[in-house]
């Protein structure tokens, strides 16, 4: 019986990839474990291997083909004596079988990223709610002069450009973290930086979050400007003592002598189908700490402009990225030195009926909800906070005074959320301007489940935002 070999999903978020190279040709005999091809995604290049024995009957997708969707048949494997044409176009006699991506040796957690194993599954059915998030382009751009050329760029490229530009600009800036160098970045953010800046300034660390976070803080005390990459912010919990007790508090405890210019950055929040220990939004945790600055960008332009500002900031900055957003594209201005100041929210969409306040990936839900609401005649204003420390309170106040109704949107847990804080602040400072109670849309009060259907329920959705807006607008 002929077997169709399907384009494999090499990571939880992969939807398509490039068939970079065939390592077998038609007529070759293969056995289980033989490497068949190299597949490239926007995050990594992976070899994948045969699961079954047989002869390569036909290669259905030629080398170099881009955008091959996951689960597309890419080759046919025939058993001995079978025709090379067997099976193709006759699904009745073929057994679809995704090729097995080679598991990478090493750390268990690596499975959550692009190198992870996701064999033999049907991505369409298992597609996570997280990766289905639409990411509309915000339609107001006051951050660069009118007439500036813009270029479509992924958040990943924008972050990489920001780091490279700042490393060019300031010799004291260096990057350290797990797999930032030779591996080219667990999420390819630092791809190419080792070649460009060398191992002195792109430092691969062992898996020792507490240790290298502390070394980074010490290096900042010693006059350098470290960028410490956490493979994800979940692992920063191992290092949180240094982030808070060593980095955030020392300036104060030293009476102003011992500044700590450091950026802690990495993906934060829910990734797709990686369950509770790898899916958590830490925005509210870090935003609670005086001495830290906290940034959570949504678009690529904000990612670039704010990361450059973060690297120049003389204080410890928590820079919360998002794995789902890394591959999404937005307009980025082509300017010599594009920075965005902290503490300036952005009106991503003007409206008059309700203010939706969000940040980070929450903006995707907020913008999508605003779009749906506009079809029903509700004109929502969407405010992107961008930085959570400092928060742009005047921008919030201006918007509340205009719309008199507020919904907050974030991915984090509901108790002690950013939305809770904003509600309290608005109540204290704009009570008379409110026509309805503020509603906080958040992730659910549960550890993130693995099952696709439960994960979908746990995450915040645009529909929930729409519903909240209907409540506060009584429509």
């Amino acid at each position, binding site marked *: 019986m002929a077997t169709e070999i399907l384009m494999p999903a090499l990571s939880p978020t992969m939807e398509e990839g490039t068939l970079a190279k065939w390592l077998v040709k038609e007529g070759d005999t293969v056995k289980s474990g033989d490497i068949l091809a190299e597949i490239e995604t926007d995050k990594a290049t992976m070899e994948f291997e045969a699961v079954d024995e047989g002869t390569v009957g036909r290669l259905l997708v030629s080398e170099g083909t881009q955008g091959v969707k996951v689960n597309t048949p890419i080759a046919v494997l025939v058993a001995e004596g079978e025709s090379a044409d067997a099976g193709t176009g006759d699904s009745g006699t073929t057994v679809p079988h995704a090729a097995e991506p080679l598991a990478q040796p090493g750390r268990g957690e690596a499975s959550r990223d692009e190198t992870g194993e996701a064999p033999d599954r049907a991505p369409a059915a298992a597609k996570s709610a997280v990766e289905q998030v639409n990411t509309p382009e915000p339609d107001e751009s006051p951050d660069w002069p009118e007439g500036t050329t813009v270029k479509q760029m992924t958040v990943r490229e924008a972050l990489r450009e920001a780091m490279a530009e700042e490393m060019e600009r300031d010799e004291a800036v260096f990057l350290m973290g797990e797999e930032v160098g030779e591996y080219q970045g667990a999420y390819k953010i630092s791809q190419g930086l080792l070649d460009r800046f060398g191992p002195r300034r792109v430092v691969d660390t062992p898996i*020792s979050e507490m240790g*290298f976070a*502390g070394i980074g803080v*010490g290096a900042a005390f010693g006059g350098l400007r470290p960028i410490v990459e956490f493979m994800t912010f979940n692992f920063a919990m191992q290092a949180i*003592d240094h982030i808070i007790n060593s980095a955030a508090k020392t300036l104060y405890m*030293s009476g102003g*002598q011992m500044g700590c210019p450091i950026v802690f950055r990495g993906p934060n929040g829910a990734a797709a189908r990686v369950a509770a220990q790898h899916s958590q939004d830490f925005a509210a945790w870090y935003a609670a700490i005086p001495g830290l600055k906290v940034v959570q960008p949504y678009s690529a332009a904000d990612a670039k402009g704010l990361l450059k500002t973060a690297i120049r900031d003389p204080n410890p900055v928590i820079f919360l990225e998002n794995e789902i957003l890394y591959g999404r594209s937005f307009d980025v201005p082509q300017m010599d030195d594009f920075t965005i100041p902290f503490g300036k929210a952005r009106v991503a969409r003007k409206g008059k009926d309700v203010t939706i306040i969000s940040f980070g990936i929450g903006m995707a839900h907020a913008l999508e909800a605003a779009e749906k609401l506009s079809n029903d005649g509700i004109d929502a204003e969407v405010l992107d906070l961008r930085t959570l420390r400092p928060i742009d309170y005047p921008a919030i106040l201006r918007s509340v005074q205009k719309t008199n109704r507020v919904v907050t949107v974030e991915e984090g847990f509901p108790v002690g959320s950013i939305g809770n804080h904003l509600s309290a602040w608005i109540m204290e400072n704009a009570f008379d301007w409110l026509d309805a109670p503020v509603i906080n849309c958040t992730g659910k009060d549960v550890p993130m489940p693995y099952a696709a259907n439960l994960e979908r329920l746990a995450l915040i959705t645009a529909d929930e935002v729409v519903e909240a807006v209907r409540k506060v607008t009584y429509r």
Partner: protein
Amino acid sequence: MARKPTETAAPAASANVSRDELLKYYRDMLLIRRFEEKAGQLYGMGLIGGFCHLYIGQEAVVVGLEATTKEGDKRITSYRDHGHMLACGMEARGVMAELTGRIGGYSKGKGGSMHMFSREKHFYGGHGIVGAQVPLGAGLAFADKYKGNDNVTFTYFGDGASNQGQVYETYNMAELWALPVIFVIENNQYAMGTSMKRSTRSTTLYGRGEAFGIPGEQVDGMDVLAVKAAGEKAVAHCRAGNGPYILEMMTYRYRGHSMSDPAKYRTREEVQKMRDERDAIEHVRQLLLQGGHASEDDLKSIDKEIKDIVNDSADFSRESPEPPLDELWTDIYADDVPQTAAEDLNV
């Protein structure tokens, strides 16, 4: 020259130590002791609050190691930090006024006993979380290596901190990257109230570095000359770019862990025996007298000089006002400091 503090002090290698050197050690150690005694007094009077960890008994460690430093070398330690600050030349006034929480203190009264710093003297704290200073110290060394100078960082921690995991993460990276850091384990034999033998089966702490390829040795931390000799060896190793070195200083604290120590975990006799037989200051005093370097009168005049410095610091610490109330809101963010450190780099 590893020697346990319970062994009797040898007459010392006084042949190759100068009179001036011995007098300096005597003076510096005495300053720490008298300062700490005064701090204990002020604590009893309610002028110092919170935690206060005295260094009495361990003076030879910092004084001996400071004798091996050069300008630009850095030091960082735990919360038992008063001795380290005095030894590296920070003013007694500023330290004492910080203990009393006054604006004249090194941290303007906002850090207290456990959190003091001096950029000028390259003293990087003063850290209240047990073991946290270890990666921080390695980070300071990382910065020196990055800048390409030959400075070293003395990273002090205790036998208690030696059981923190981050110490070993740091050992691994320090050796991997050949960082110029000297790990100084001040083994005073009690982690708060838990003796070494109740916390580990290891018989030596410096030996744990072997697993990472870091050389080290045990040193009689009650003998300032032995400390200095070992320090010189470690410094030479580090300055030459050979990576870290571990010095396990066998020492002893006479006072409690902090001011509220029940003193139930060791006997009065054990403490008294150390004071009588192994005291670091008495050791140098005898070297000075027996070597004919100083008379009783000479030493008395030093005692008086020290007493004056300490009394002056105590007076200052009481006269200096509490921080103005607007200090509550300053120094949280450093946005008024230069935006780039590149000009500091010798690259």
